[in-house]
């Protein structure tokens, strides 16, 4: 490393890219294998879906739920993609949107 290298910004850290890709693929393959140790996840996912559907009508695949590791800890990550317009919820905002954007 010479004088100028000290000031040059680091290239993209390929090791962390590798680690991130592996975390994802290994997790997927463990699920496919029936491993992973969180066998309550499918049931929990279904129940969460039911709760959300009381308020918003989302598709079954709108819920993404998984467990990741951060150092020693396990983190439950839950993300729900809401529909573009929650028409079926019958909210005022829904109707307002419809009015401003016109018919489909």
């Amino acid at each position: 490393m010479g004088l100028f290298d000290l000031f040059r910004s680091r290239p993209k850290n390929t090791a962390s890219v590798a680690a991130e890709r592996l975390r994802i693929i290994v997790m997927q393959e463990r699920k496919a294998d029936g491993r992973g140790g969180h066998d309550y996840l499918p049931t929990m996912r279904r129940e969460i879906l039911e709760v959300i559907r009381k308020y918003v009508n989302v598709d079954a695949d709108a819920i993404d739920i998984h467990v990741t590791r951060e150092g020693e800890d396990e983190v439950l990550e839950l993300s729900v993609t809401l529909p573009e317009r929650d028409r079926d919820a019958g909210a005022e905002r829904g109707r307002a949107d419809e009015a401003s954007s016109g018919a489909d």
Partner: protein
Amino acid sequence: MSEVIVVTSGKGGVGKTTTSASLAVGLARRGKKVAVIDFDVGLRNLDLIMGCERRVVYDFVNVIQGECTLKQALIKDKRIDTLFVLAASQTRDKDALTKEGVERVLKELDEDGFDYVLCDSPAGIEKGAALAMYFADRAVVVVNPEVSSVRDSDRILGLLASKTRRAEQGGTGVEQHLLLTRYNPERVANGDMMGITDVKDILGIDVIGVIPESEGVLTASNAGVPVILDDASDAGQAYADAVARLCGETLPMRFTEAQKKGFFSRIFGG
């Protein structure tokens, strides 16, 4: 009871045979009676790494097929008298090994008072690898800090947890350890090789040893002297530490930090 330890990886060429040889020597050097078995039918190599290739008369398949006794096939190490090698057969018949045959050999080794039996697995997840792990009490999963090796190791962890006698018995299962090898601390520091915690977190099992990428390994295999016998080499010392941990000792990892460069070499290059 003798303890059966499989050295496995899924991916080929990651350092299983190098590791099997050094762990076997290390355990035997501690006064344990050790047999190390080459399960790589058709691709015998452990004999070369152990330096006993010219003394192979009978092999593992000969014993299983009743063509000789186990005693005739076990090659006694010239350096440590509690260490024995059982060579793989060079036959091209991959079905030469059978579960019953392997079980019989392991039982006889147990009756002969062996403390440890190390099984050097072939690469892959086919029959040879499956048989090498089937009777294991413990597994040393050899992994390089590289994407395909890590992924394949996880496949192996899945098999250890389902396709082994211990898994089928439903008790505590096979005790699993990771052994990271060909580790390059400088590249880890630069961010272009995954570090110990990355690999450990992804696979979720404990690390029994970290062996640095080392010139000593080639020198050792050239000479037929397992690298652990080279006290001057970093890889040899790292294997000795791994053996101590296998025996239950707690030791800090060595050779895992990049050499710190001095101020001048950082400023002026080098």
